[in-house]
Protein backbone atom coordinates (compact mmCIF):
# COMPACT_ATOMS: atom_id res chain seq x y z
CA UNK A 1 0.00 0.00 0.00
CA UNK A 2 1.77 3.13 -1.17
CA UNK A 3 1.24 6.73 -0.16
CA UNK A 4 -1.18 7.42 -2.99
CA UNK A 5 -3.46 4.57 -1.97
CA UNK A 6 -3.39 5.72 1.63
CA UNK A 7 -4.36 9.26 0.70
CA UNK A 8 -7.12 7.99 -1.56
CA UNK A 9 -8.44 5.77 1.25
CA UNK A 10 -8.29 8.59 3.77
CA UNK A 11 -10.20 10.96 1.51
CA UNK A 12 -12.85 8.33 0.77
CA UNK A 13 -13.31 7.54 4.43
CA UNK A 14 -13.12 11.19 5.53
CA UNK A 15 -16.65 11.52 7.05
CA UNK A 16 -16.13 8.66 9.50
CA UNK A 17 -12.59 9.71 10.40
CA UNK A 18 -13.83 13.25 10.98
CA UNK A 19 -16.66 11.96 13.20
CA UNK A 20 -14.17 9.83 15.13
CA UNK A 21 -11.99 12.85 15.93
CA UNK A 22 -15.05 14.90 16.84
CA UNK A 23 -16.19 12.14 19.23
CA UNK A 24 -12.80 12.37 20.96
CA UNK A 25 -13.06 16.18 21.07
CA UNK A 26 -16.52 15.99 22.61
CA UNK A 27 -15.28 13.57 25.26
CA UNK A 28 -12.58 16.11 26.11
CA UNK A 29 -14.92 19.10 25.99
CA UNK A 30 -17.26 17.40 28.45
CA UNK A 31 -14.63 17.71 31.19
CA UNK A 32 -14.55 21.52 31.16
CA UNK A 33 -17.45 23.35 32.74
CA UNK A 34 -17.37 26.22 30.26
CA UNK A 35 -17.43 23.91 27.24
CA UNK A 36 -19.94 21.42 28.59
CA UNK A 37 -23.00 23.34 27.45
CA UNK A 38 -21.70 23.48 23.87
CA UNK A 39 -21.37 19.69 23.61
CA UNK A 40 -24.77 19.32 21.93
CA UNK A 41 -24.01 21.99 19.36
CA UNK A 42 -20.64 20.44 18.53
CA UNK A 43 -22.33 17.06 18.01
CA UNK A 44 -25.01 18.51 15.73
CA UNK A 45 -22.57 20.55 13.66
CA UNK A 46 -20.09 17.69 13.25
CA UNK A 47 -22.84 15.27 12.19
CA UNK A 48 -24.07 17.78 9.62
CA UNK A 49 -20.52 18.28 8.30
CA UNK A 50 -19.97 14.50 8.05
CA UNK A 51 -23.30 14.14 6.26
CA UNK A 52 -22.41 16.86 3.76
CA UNK A 53 -18.96 15.31 3.17
CA UNK A 54 -20.67 12.00 2.52
CA UNK A 55 -23.26 13.66 0.28
CA UNK A 56 -20.83 15.56 -1.93
CA UNK A 57 -18.53 12.56 -2.33
CA UNK A 58 -21.44 10.50 -3.66
CA UNK A 59 -20.49 8.56 -6.78
CA UNK A 60 -22.10 5.71 -8.66
CA UNK A 61 -19.01 3.50 -8.90
CA UNK A 62 -17.73 1.43 -6.01
CA UNK A 63 -14.29 2.02 -4.53
CA UNK A 64 -12.32 -0.35 -2.31
CA UNK A 65 -10.40 1.43 0.41
CA UNK A 66 -7.74 0.51 3.03
CA UNK A 67 -6.52 -2.65 1.27
CA UNK A 68 -10.03 -3.83 0.36
CA UNK A 69 -11.13 -3.86 3.98
CA UNK A 70 -13.85 -1.29 3.36
CA UNK A 71 -16.06 -0.59 0.40
CA UNK A 72 -17.67 2.64 -0.69
CA UNK A 73 -20.45 2.49 -3.26
CA UNK A 74 -23.76 4.17 -3.95
CA UNK A 75 -25.53 1.60 -1.71
CA UNK A 76 -23.33 2.31 1.30
CA UNK A 77 -23.44 6.08 0.83
CA UNK A 78 -27.23 6.13 0.43
CA UNK A 79 -27.80 4.18 3.65
CA UNK A 80 -25.14 6.17 5.50
CA UNK A 81 -26.89 9.42 4.62
CA UNK A 82 -30.16 7.97 5.94
CA UNK A 83 -28.32 7.04 9.17
CA UNK A 84 -26.99 10.59 9.51
CA UNK A 85 -30.44 12.12 9.00
CA UNK A 86 -32.08 9.76 11.50
CA UNK A 87 -29.30 10.46 14.00
CA UNK A 88 -29.73 14.24 13.63
CA UNK A 89 -33.49 13.98 14.20
CA UNK A 90 -32.90 11.91 17.34
CA UNK A 91 -30.35 14.32 18.80
CA UNK A 92 -32.50 17.39 18.14
CA UNK A 93 -35.63 15.83 19.63
CA UNK A 94 -33.94 14.37 22.71
CA UNK A 95 -32.36 17.61 24.01
CA UNK A 96 -35.22 18.61 26.32
CA UNK A 97 -35.69 15.07 27.67
CA UNK A 98 -31.98 14.72 28.45
CA UNK A 99 -31.87 18.11 30.16
CA UNK A 100 -34.83 17.13 32.35
CA UNK A 101 -33.21 13.85 33.32
CA UNK A 102 -29.79 15.49 33.79
CA UNK A 103 -28.14 13.03 31.44
CA UNK A 104 -26.37 15.58 29.25
CA UNK A 105 -22.62 15.05 29.41
CA UNK A 106 -19.61 14.80 27.17
CA UNK A 107 -19.48 11.02 27.37
CA UNK A 108 -23.14 10.66 26.40
CA UNK A 109 -22.70 12.35 23.03
CA UNK A 110 -19.26 10.89 22.51
CA UNK A 111 -20.52 7.34 23.05
CA UNK A 112 -23.54 8.03 20.86
CA UNK A 113 -21.22 9.15 18.05
CA UNK A 114 -19.09 6.03 18.53
CA UNK A 115 -22.19 3.87 18.24
CA UNK A 116 -23.07 5.71 15.02
CA UNK A 117 -19.53 5.23 13.66
CA UNK A 118 -19.76 1.50 14.47
CA UNK A 119 -22.95 1.23 12.45
CA UNK A 120 -21.39 3.17 9.56
CA UNK A 121 -18.42 0.75 9.61
CA UNK A 122 -20.80 -2.24 9.48
CA UNK A 123 -22.44 -0.65 6.44
CA UNK A 124 -19.20 -0.23 4.53
CA UNK A 125 -17.29 -3.30 5.78
CA UNK A 126 -15.88 -5.61 3.14
CA UNK A 127 -13.81 -7.79 5.43
CA UNK A 128 -14.84 -9.99 8.35
CA UNK A 129 -12.43 -8.23 10.72
CA UNK A 130 -13.76 -4.74 9.95
CA UNK A 131 -17.31 -6.06 10.13
CA UNK A 132 -16.70 -7.60 13.56
CA UNK A 133 -15.02 -4.45 14.86
CA UNK A 134 -17.93 -2.35 13.60
CA UNK A 135 -20.46 -4.60 15.37
CA UNK A 136 -18.49 -4.45 18.60
CA UNK A 137 -17.85 -0.71 18.45
CA UNK A 138 -21.56 -0.02 18.15
CA UNK A 139 -22.68 -2.54 20.77
CA UNK A 140 -19.96 -1.71 23.34
CA UNK A 141 -21.02 1.94 23.19
CA UNK A 142 -24.67 0.98 23.50
CA UNK A 143 -24.12 -1.17 26.64
CA UNK A 144 -22.65 1.78 28.47
CA UNK A 145 -25.27 4.19 27.11
CA UNK A 146 -28.13 2.01 28.38
CA UNK A 147 -26.57 1.84 31.84
CA UNK A 148 -25.75 5.56 31.88
CA UNK A 149 -28.66 6.48 34.15
CA UNK A 150 -26.93 5.06 37.23
CA UNK A 151 -29.58 5.94 39.77
CA UNK A 152 -32.27 4.03 37.91
CA UNK A 153 -32.86 0.40 38.94
CA UNK A 154 -34.21 -0.69 35.58
CA UNK A 155 -31.46 0.83 33.40
CA UNK A 156 -28.78 -1.43 34.88
CA UNK A 157 -31.02 -4.44 34.47
CA UNK A 158 -31.76 -3.58 30.82
CA UNK A 159 -28.03 -3.08 30.25
CA UNK A 160 -27.01 -6.46 31.69
CA UNK A 161 -29.70 -8.25 29.67
CA UNK A 162 -28.70 -6.51 26.46
CA UNK A 163 -25.03 -7.15 27.27
CA UNK A 164 -25.37 -10.91 27.71
CA UNK A 165 -27.69 -11.54 24.76
CA UNK A 166 -25.82 -9.23 22.42
CA UNK A 167 -22.53 -10.99 23.20
CA UNK A 168 -24.16 -14.37 22.56
CA UNK A 169 -25.26 -12.98 19.19
CA UNK A 170 -21.76 -11.69 18.42
CA UNK A 171 -20.23 -15.03 19.45
CA UNK A 172 -22.66 -16.95 17.20
CA UNK A 173 -21.80 -14.65 14.30
CA UNK A 174 -18.08 -15.13 15.03
CA UNK A 175 -18.43 -18.90 15.28
CA UNK A 176 -20.07 -18.87 11.86
CA UNK A 177 -17.28 -16.62 10.56
CA UNK A 178 -14.63 -19.06 11.78
CA UNK A 179 -16.16 -21.93 9.77
CA UNK A 180 -16.60 -19.67 6.74
CA UNK A 181 -12.92 -18.80 7.02
CA UNK A 182 -12.04 -22.47 7.26
CA UNK A 183 -14.08 -23.34 4.17
CA UNK A 184 -13.15 -20.46 1.90
CA UNK A 185 -9.71 -19.55 3.30
CA UNK A 186 -10.58 -15.91 2.97
CA UNK A 187 -11.85 -13.10 5.14
CA UNK A 188 -13.31 -11.07 2.26
CA UNK A 189 -17.10 -10.96 2.33
CA UNK A 190 -17.47 -10.88 -1.44
CA UNK A 191 -15.25 -13.97 -1.85
CA UNK A 192 -17.27 -15.80 0.83
CA UNK A 193 -20.58 -14.84 -0.78
CA UNK A 194 -19.36 -15.84 -4.26
CA UNK A 195 -17.88 -19.13 -3.04
CA UNK A 196 -20.89 -21.14 -4.21
CA UNK A 197 -20.58 -20.00 -7.82
CA UNK A 198 -17.49 -22.25 -8.18
CA UNK A 199 -18.15 -24.87 -5.52
CA UNK A 200 -20.84 -27.23 -4.32
CA UNK A 201 -22.90 -26.27 -1.28
CA UNK A 202 -21.51 -28.22 1.69
CA UNK A 203 -23.32 -28.86 4.95
CA UNK A 204 -20.69 -26.93 6.86
CA UNK A 205 -21.20 -23.84 4.69
CA UNK A 206 -24.96 -24.05 5.26
CA UNK A 207 -24.43 -24.55 8.99
CA UNK A 208 -22.13 -21.56 9.30
CA UNK A 209 -24.57 -19.36 7.35
CA UNK A 210 -27.35 -20.44 9.68
CA UNK A 211 -25.17 -19.58 12.70
CA UNK A 212 -24.42 -16.15 11.25
CA UNK A 213 -28.07 -15.50 10.54
CA UNK A 214 -29.15 -16.60 14.01
CA UNK A 215 -26.80 -13.88 15.20
CA UNK A 216 -28.39 -11.42 12.77
CA UNK A 217 -31.83 -12.50 14.00
CA UNK A 218 -30.69 -11.69 17.56
CA UNK A 219 -29.65 -8.22 16.46
CA UNK A 220 -32.88 -7.71 14.51
CA UNK A 221 -34.88 -9.12 17.48
CA UNK A 222 -36.66 -11.70 15.35
CA UNK A 223 -38.60 -14.22 17.47
CA UNK A 224 -37.54 -16.56 19.11
CA UNK A 225 -34.46 -14.37 19.63
CA UNK A 226 -36.37 -11.26 20.68
CA UNK A 227 -36.25 -11.59 24.50
CA UNK A 228 -33.98 -8.60 25.06
CA UNK A 229 -35.92 -6.08 22.99
CA UNK A 230 -38.92 -5.30 25.27
CA UNK A 231 -36.68 -5.03 28.34
CA UNK A 232 -34.26 -2.69 26.60
CA UNK A 233 -37.09 -0.56 25.22
CA UNK A 234 -38.51 -0.22 28.70
CA UNK A 235 -35.31 0.18 30.67
CA UNK A 236 -33.09 2.35 28.48
CA UNK A 237 -33.40 6.14 28.35
CA UNK A 238 -35.78 7.04 25.49
CA UNK A 239 -33.15 8.64 23.18
CA UNK A 240 -31.06 5.46 23.40
CA UNK A 241 -34.12 3.32 22.66
CA UNK A 242 -34.67 5.55 19.64
CA UNK A 243 -31.14 4.83 18.47
CA UNK A 244 -31.27 1.06 19.08
CA UNK A 245 -34.60 0.77 17.28
CA UNK A 246 -33.44 2.43 14.09
CA UNK A 247 -29.80 2.74 13.06
CA UNK A 248 -28.48 -0.78 13.92
CA UNK A 249 -31.41 -2.21 11.95
CA UNK A 250 -30.24 -0.38 8.83
CA UNK A 251 -26.66 -1.52 9.45
CA UNK A 252 -27.61 -5.17 9.93
CA UNK A 253 -29.80 -5.07 6.87
CA UNK A 254 -26.73 -4.09 4.82
CA UNK A 255 -24.85 -6.91 6.62
CA UNK A 256 -27.48 -9.41 5.43
CA UNK A 257 -27.46 -7.88 1.96
CA UNK A 258 -23.68 -8.29 1.63
CA UNK A 259 -23.79 -11.93 2.69
CA UNK A 260 -26.77 -12.92 0.56
CA UNK A 261 -26.55 -10.76 -2.56
CA UNK A 262 -25.69 -12.93 -5.61
CA UNK A 263 -25.31 -15.90 -3.30
CA UNK A 264 -26.63 -19.27 -4.46
CA UNK A 265 -27.47 -20.24 -0.87
CA UNK A 266 -30.75 -18.34 -1.20
CA UNK A 267 -31.86 -21.04 -3.67
CA UNK A 268 -31.13 -23.73 -1.12
CA UNK A 269 -34.37 -25.03 0.34
CA UNK A 270 -33.13 -25.40 3.92
CA UNK A 271 -31.75 -21.91 4.18
CA UNK A 272 -34.66 -20.09 2.56
CA UNK A 273 -37.15 -22.05 4.69
CA UNK A 274 -35.13 -21.10 7.78
CA UNK A 275 -35.48 -17.39 6.94
CA UNK A 276 -39.16 -17.79 6.03
CA UNK A 277 -40.17 -19.62 9.23
CA UNK A 278 -38.29 -17.14 11.42
CA UNK A 279 -40.18 -14.34 9.69
CA UNK A 280 -43.64 -15.90 10.09
CA UNK A 281 -43.00 -16.95 13.69
CA UNK A 282 -41.80 -13.46 14.52
CA UNK A 283 -44.92 -11.82 13.08
CA UNK A 284 -47.04 -14.26 15.11
CA UNK A 285 -45.19 -13.73 18.41
CA UNK A 286 -44.88 -9.98 17.97
CA UNK A 287 -48.56 -9.40 17.30
CA UNK A 288 -49.80 -11.82 19.97
CA UNK A 289 -47.61 -10.47 22.77
CA UNK A 290 -48.28 -6.84 21.82
CA UNK A 291 -52.01 -7.42 22.41
CA UNK A 292 -51.39 -8.08 26.10
CA UNK A 293 -49.06 -5.14 26.84
CA UNK A 294 -50.00 -2.30 29.18
CA UNK A 295 -46.78 -0.32 28.78
CA UNK A 296 -46.40 1.73 25.63
CA UNK A 297 -42.69 1.02 25.05
CA UNK A 298 -43.18 -2.73 25.43
CA UNK A 299 -46.05 -2.55 22.96
CA UNK A 300 -43.82 -0.71 20.49
CA UNK A 301 -41.10 -3.30 21.12
CA UNK A 302 -43.37 -6.22 20.23
CA UNK A 303 -44.63 -4.32 17.21
CA UNK A 304 -40.95 -3.98 16.32
CA UNK A 305 -40.59 -7.78 16.61
CA UNK A 306 -43.47 -8.21 14.16
CA UNK A 307 -41.92 -5.68 11.79
CA UNK A 308 -38.55 -7.45 11.94
CA UNK A 309 -40.41 -10.57 10.90
CA UNK A 310 -41.62 -8.69 7.85
CA UNK A 311 -38.02 -7.72 7.07
CA UNK A 312 -37.04 -11.40 7.16
CA UNK A 313 -39.98 -12.26 4.90
CA UNK A 314 -38.78 -9.55 2.52
CA UNK A 315 -35.27 -11.03 2.60
CA UNK A 316 -36.81 -14.42 1.79
CA UNK A 317 -38.72 -12.82 -1.07
CA UNK A 318 -35.54 -11.35 -2.50
CA UNK A 319 -34.90 -14.86 -3.87
CA UNK A 320 -36.44 -13.80 -7.18
CA UNK A 321 -36.53 -10.05 -6.90
CA UNK A 322 -33.63 -8.10 -5.56
CA UNK A 323 -33.23 -6.61 -2.13
CA UNK A 324 -35.15 -3.44 -2.93
CA UNK A 325 -38.35 -4.72 -1.26
CA UNK A 326 -36.47 -5.46 1.96
CA UNK A 327 -34.57 -2.15 1.75
CA UNK A 328 -37.82 -0.24 1.29
CA UNK A 329 -39.30 -2.04 4.28
CA UNK A 330 -36.28 -1.29 6.47
CA UNK A 331 -36.40 2.40 5.57
CA UNK A 332 -40.15 2.53 6.20
CA UNK A 333 -39.79 0.80 9.54
CA UNK A 334 -36.94 3.10 10.58
CA UNK A 335 -38.85 6.26 9.68
CA UNK A 336 -42.04 5.23 11.49
CA UNK A 337 -40.27 3.95 14.62
CA UNK A 338 -38.16 7.06 14.91
CA UNK A 339 -41.32 9.14 14.58
CA UNK A 340 -43.18 7.16 17.26
CA UNK A 341 -40.37 7.13 19.83
CA UNK A 342 -39.53 10.79 19.15
CA UNK A 343 -43.13 11.77 19.89
CA UNK A 344 -43.07 9.84 23.18
CA UNK A 345 -39.74 11.50 24.02
CA UNK A 346 -41.30 14.87 23.25
CA UNK A 347 -44.29 14.27 25.55
CA UNK A 348 -42.24 12.89 28.46
CA UNK A 349 -40.77 15.45 30.80
CA UNK A 350 -39.15 15.37 34.23
CA UNK A 351 -42.49 15.51 36.05
CA UNK A 352 -44.29 13.11 33.77
CA UNK A 353 -43.06 9.93 32.10
CA UNK A 354 -45.26 8.18 29.60
CA UNK A 355 -44.98 4.58 30.78
CA UNK A 356 -48.42 3.03 30.47
CA UNK A 357 -50.68 3.26 27.45
CA UNK A 358 -53.38 4.79 29.59
CA UNK A 359 -51.03 7.66 30.43
CA UNK A 360 -51.84 8.95 26.96
CA UNK A 361 -55.55 9.30 27.59
CA UNK A 362 -56.98 12.65 26.61
CA UNK A 363 -53.80 13.77 24.85
CA UNK A 364 -55.85 15.26 22.00
CA UNK A 365 -57.50 17.80 24.30
CA UNK A 366 -54.09 19.14 25.41
CA UNK A 367 -52.24 18.94 22.12
CA UNK A 368 -54.24 18.11 19.01
CA UNK A 369 -51.27 18.32 16.65
CA UNK A 370 -49.12 15.84 18.57
CA UNK A 371 -51.94 13.31 18.84
CA UNK A 372 -52.72 13.53 15.11
CA UNK A 373 -49.02 13.04 14.31
CA UNK A 374 -48.86 10.05 16.66
CA UNK A 375 -51.99 8.62 15.06
CA UNK A 376 -50.50 8.84 11.56
CA UNK A 377 -47.33 7.15 12.80
CA UNK A 378 -49.21 4.31 14.50
CA UNK A 379 -51.41 3.77 11.46
CA UNK A 380 -48.30 3.55 9.32
CA UNK A 381 -46.78 0.94 11.66
CA UNK A 382 -50.03 -1.00 11.47
CA UNK A 383 -50.08 -0.78 7.67
CA UNK A 384 -53.26 1.17 6.98
CA UNK A 385 -53.65 2.64 3.46
CA UNK A 386 -52.60 6.25 2.86
CA UNK A 387 -49.41 5.60 4.79
CA UNK A 388 -46.01 4.34 3.68
CA UNK A 389 -46.33 1.32 5.97
CA UNK A 390 -49.18 -0.01 3.86
CA UNK A 391 -47.15 0.21 0.68
CA UNK A 392 -44.15 -1.53 2.27
CA UNK A 393 -46.30 -4.40 3.57
CA UNK A 394 -48.05 -4.60 0.20
CA UNK A 395 -44.71 -5.00 -1.57
CA UNK A 396 -43.68 -7.86 0.73
CA UNK A 397 -47.02 -9.65 0.30
CA UNK A 398 -46.93 -9.09 -3.46
CA UNK A 399 -43.49 -10.67 -3.61
CA UNK A 400 -44.74 -13.65 -1.54
CA UNK A 401 -47.76 -14.17 -3.81
CA UNK A 402 -45.51 -14.04 -6.87
CA UNK A 403 -43.64 -17.01 -5.43
CA UNK A 404 -46.89 -19.00 -4.95
CA UNK A 405 -46.76 -18.58 -1.20
CA UNK A 406 -50.45 -17.66 -1.06
CA UNK A 407 -51.24 -19.46 2.23
CA UNK A 408 -48.31 -17.75 3.93
CA UNK A 409 -49.49 -14.39 2.63
CA UNK A 410 -53.01 -15.02 3.96
CA UNK A 411 -51.69 -16.01 7.40
CA UNK A 412 -49.51 -12.89 7.52
CA UNK A 413 -52.45 -10.65 6.56
CA UNK A 414 -54.67 -12.22 9.25
CA UNK A 415 -51.98 -11.74 11.91
CA UNK A 416 -51.54 -8.11 10.84
CA UNK A 417 -55.28 -7.52 11.10
CA UNK A 418 -55.26 -8.93 14.65
CA UNK A 419 -52.36 -6.60 15.39
CA UNK A 420 -54.47 -3.62 14.36
CA UNK A 421 -56.28 -3.87 17.70
CA UNK A 422 -53.44 -2.65 19.87
CA UNK A 423 -52.64 0.31 17.65
CA UNK A 424 -56.29 1.35 17.60
CA UNK A 425 -56.43 1.04 21.40
CA UNK A 426 -53.73 3.71 21.74
CA UNK A 427 -55.62 5.95 19.31
CA UNK A 428 -58.82 5.35 21.30
CA UNK A 429 -57.08 6.42 24.52
CA UNK A 430 -55.72 9.56 22.89
CA UNK A 431 -58.96 10.79 21.31
CA UNK A 432 -61.92 9.34 23.20
CA UNK A 433 -60.84 9.29 26.85
CA UNK A 434 -60.36 12.28 29.09
CA UNK A 435 -57.83 13.41 31.65
CA UNK A 436 -54.29 13.94 30.41
CA UNK A 437 -52.12 14.41 33.47
CA UNK A 438 -49.51 16.84 32.26
CA UNK A 439 -49.07 19.92 30.13
CA UNK A 440 -47.38 19.38 26.78
CA UNK A 441 -44.95 22.25 26.77
CA UNK A 442 -45.28 24.39 23.69
CA UNK A 443 -41.58 25.29 23.85
CA UNK A 444 -39.45 24.19 20.98
CA UNK A 445 -41.03 25.08 17.65
CA UNK A 446 -38.07 23.47 15.87
CA UNK A 447 -38.92 20.17 17.55
CA UNK A 448 -42.55 20.48 16.53
CA UNK A 449 -41.55 21.17 12.92
CA UNK A 450 -39.23 18.12 12.89
CA UNK A 451 -41.93 15.96 14.45
CA UNK A 452 -44.44 17.09 11.80
CA UNK A 453 -42.10 16.54 8.87
CA UNK A 454 -41.80 12.77 9.42
CA UNK A 455 -45.56 11.98 9.31
CA UNK A 456 -45.85 14.25 6.27
CA UNK A 457 -43.10 12.15 4.66
CA UNK A 458 -45.00 9.01 5.63
CA UNK A 459 -47.99 10.18 3.62
CA UNK A 460 -45.99 11.79 0.82
CA UNK A 461 -43.98 8.66 0.06
CA UNK A 462 -47.24 6.68 -0.07
CA UNK A 463 -48.50 8.98 -2.81
CA UNK A 464 -45.23 8.92 -4.78
CA UNK A 465 -43.63 5.58 -3.77
CA UNK A 466 -41.89 4.99 -7.10
CA UNK A 467 -39.63 7.93 -6.43
CA UNK A 468 -37.92 6.03 -3.60
CA UNK A 469 -38.55 2.49 -4.73
CA UNK A 470 -37.20 2.79 -8.27
CA UNK A 471 -34.07 4.46 -6.89
CA UNK A 472 -33.54 1.58 -4.43
CA UNK A 473 -34.20 -0.93 -7.20
CA UNK A 474 -31.57 0.75 -9.38
CA UNK A 475 -28.79 0.88 -6.77
CA UNK A 476 -29.37 -2.60 -5.35
CA UNK A 477 -29.37 -4.38 -8.72
Amino acid sequence: MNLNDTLMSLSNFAPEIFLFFMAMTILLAGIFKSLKKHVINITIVSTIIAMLLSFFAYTDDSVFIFNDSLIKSNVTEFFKIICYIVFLIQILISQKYLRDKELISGEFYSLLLFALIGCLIIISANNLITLFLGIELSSLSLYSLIALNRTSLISGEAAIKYFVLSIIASALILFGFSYLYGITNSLMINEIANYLSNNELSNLYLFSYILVFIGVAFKFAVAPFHMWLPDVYEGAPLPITNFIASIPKIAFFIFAYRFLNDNQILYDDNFSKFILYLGIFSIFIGNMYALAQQKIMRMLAYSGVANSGFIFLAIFASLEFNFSVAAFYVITYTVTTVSAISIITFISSNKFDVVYIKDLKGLSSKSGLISVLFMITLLSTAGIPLTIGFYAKYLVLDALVDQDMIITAVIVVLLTVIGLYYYLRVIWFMFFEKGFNSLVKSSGTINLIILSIIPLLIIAIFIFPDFVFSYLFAILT
Partner: protein
Amino acid sequence: MITMTHYLVFSALLFCISVAGIFINRKNILLLLMSIELMLLSVNTNFIIFSNYSNDITGQVFVFFILAVAAAESAIGLAIIVSLFRARNSLEINLINKLKG
Protein backbone atom coordinates in the same frame (compact mmCIF):
# COMPACT_ATOMS: atom_id res chain seq x y z
CA MET B 1 -2.71 -38.91 16.12
CA ILE B 2 -4.73 -35.75 16.70
CA THR B 3 -6.32 -34.52 13.50
CA MET B 4 -8.06 -31.30 12.58
CA THR B 5 -11.44 -32.87 13.29
CA HIS B 6 -10.47 -33.51 16.90
CA TYR B 7 -9.60 -29.88 17.38
CA LEU B 8 -12.82 -28.75 15.74
CA VAL B 9 -14.93 -31.04 17.92
CA PHE B 10 -13.05 -29.74 20.95
CA SER B 11 -13.82 -26.09 20.16
CA ALA B 12 -17.46 -26.90 19.32
CA LEU B 13 -17.75 -28.62 22.72
CA LEU B 14 -16.22 -25.60 24.43
CA PHE B 15 -18.78 -23.39 22.70
CA CYS B 16 -21.67 -25.64 23.78
CA ILE B 17 -20.40 -25.71 27.38
CA SER B 18 -20.26 -21.93 27.50
CA VAL B 19 -23.78 -21.53 26.04
CA ALA B 20 -25.04 -24.05 28.60
CA GLY B 21 -23.18 -22.12 31.29
CA ILE B 22 -25.05 -18.96 30.38
CA PHE B 23 -28.48 -20.53 30.30
CA ILE B 24 -28.22 -23.00 33.20
CA ASN B 25 -26.46 -20.62 35.59
CA ARG B 26 -29.02 -19.18 38.00
CA LYS B 27 -26.78 -17.93 40.78
CA ASN B 28 -24.21 -15.31 39.99
CA ILE B 29 -23.70 -12.75 37.28
CA LEU B 30 -19.91 -13.09 37.45
CA LEU B 31 -20.21 -16.65 36.17
CA LEU B 32 -21.92 -15.21 33.10
CA LEU B 33 -18.81 -13.18 32.30
CA MET B 34 -16.65 -16.32 32.53
CA SER B 35 -18.96 -18.19 30.17
CA ILE B 36 -18.82 -15.30 27.72
CA GLU B 37 -15.01 -15.35 27.77
CA LEU B 38 -15.02 -19.10 27.17
CA MET B 39 -17.37 -18.60 24.21
CA LEU B 40 -15.05 -16.15 22.50
CA LEU B 41 -12.02 -18.35 23.27
CA SER B 42 -13.62 -21.32 21.56
CA VAL B 43 -14.05 -19.14 18.46
CA ASN B 44 -10.35 -18.25 18.74
CA THR B 45 -9.40 -21.93 18.85
CA ASN B 46 -11.36 -22.48 15.65
CA PHE B 47 -9.61 -19.62 13.87
CA ILE B 48 -6.16 -20.82 14.95
CA ILE B 49 -6.85 -24.37 13.79
CA PHE B 50 -8.04 -23.27 10.36
CA SER B 51 -5.21 -20.79 10.06
CA ASN B 52 -2.62 -23.42 10.99
CA TYR B 53 -3.91 -26.12 8.66
CA SER B 54 -4.24 -23.82 5.65
CA ASN B 55 -0.95 -21.94 6.19
CA ASP B 56 -2.75 -18.61 6.09
CA ILE B 57 -1.80 -16.01 8.67
CA THR B 58 -4.94 -13.81 8.49
CA GLY B 59 -6.91 -16.09 10.81
CA GLN B 60 -4.39 -15.52 13.56
CA VAL B 61 -4.63 -11.76 13.04
CA PHE B 62 -8.37 -12.06 13.58
CA VAL B 63 -7.67 -13.86 16.89
CA PHE B 64 -5.80 -10.85 18.22
CA PHE B 65 -8.71 -8.58 17.41
CA ILE B 66 -11.13 -10.95 19.14
CA LEU B 67 -8.91 -11.10 22.25
CA ALA B 68 -8.73 -7.31 22.43
CA VAL B 69 -12.49 -6.92 22.00
CA ALA B 70 -13.17 -9.64 24.60
CA ALA B 71 -11.05 -7.74 27.12
CA ALA B 72 -12.97 -4.53 26.42
CA GLU B 73 -16.23 -6.39 26.68
CA SER B 74 -15.49 -7.87 30.10
CA ALA B 75 -14.33 -4.45 31.32
CA ILE B 76 -17.67 -2.91 30.35
CA GLY B 77 -19.54 -5.93 31.72
CA LEU B 78 -17.81 -5.52 35.09
CA ALA B 79 -18.63 -1.80 35.09
CA ILE B 80 -22.32 -2.56 34.49
CA ILE B 81 -22.24 -5.19 37.24
CA VAL B 82 -20.70 -2.71 39.69
CA SER B 83 -23.40 -0.13 38.98
CA LEU B 84 -26.06 -2.83 39.29
CA PHE B 85 -24.61 -3.97 42.62
CA ARG B 86 -24.61 -0.40 43.96
CA ALA B 87 -28.26 -0.02 43.02
CA ARG B 88 -29.52 -3.22 44.65
CA ASN B 89 -26.78 -4.72 46.86
CA SER B 90 -26.95 -8.17 45.33
CA LEU B 91 -25.65 -10.04 42.32
CA GLU B 92 -28.19 -12.84 42.19
CA ILE B 93 -29.69 -13.41 38.78
CA ASN B 94 -33.08 -14.33 40.26
CA LEU B 95 -33.41 -10.78 41.54
CA ILE B 96 -33.01 -9.24 38.07
CA ASN B 97 -36.72 -9.27 37.40
CA LYS B 98 -37.88 -5.67 37.62
CA LEU B 99 -38.60 -5.47 33.91
CA LYS B 100 -41.71 -7.29 32.82
CA GLY B 101 -44.87 -6.53 30.94
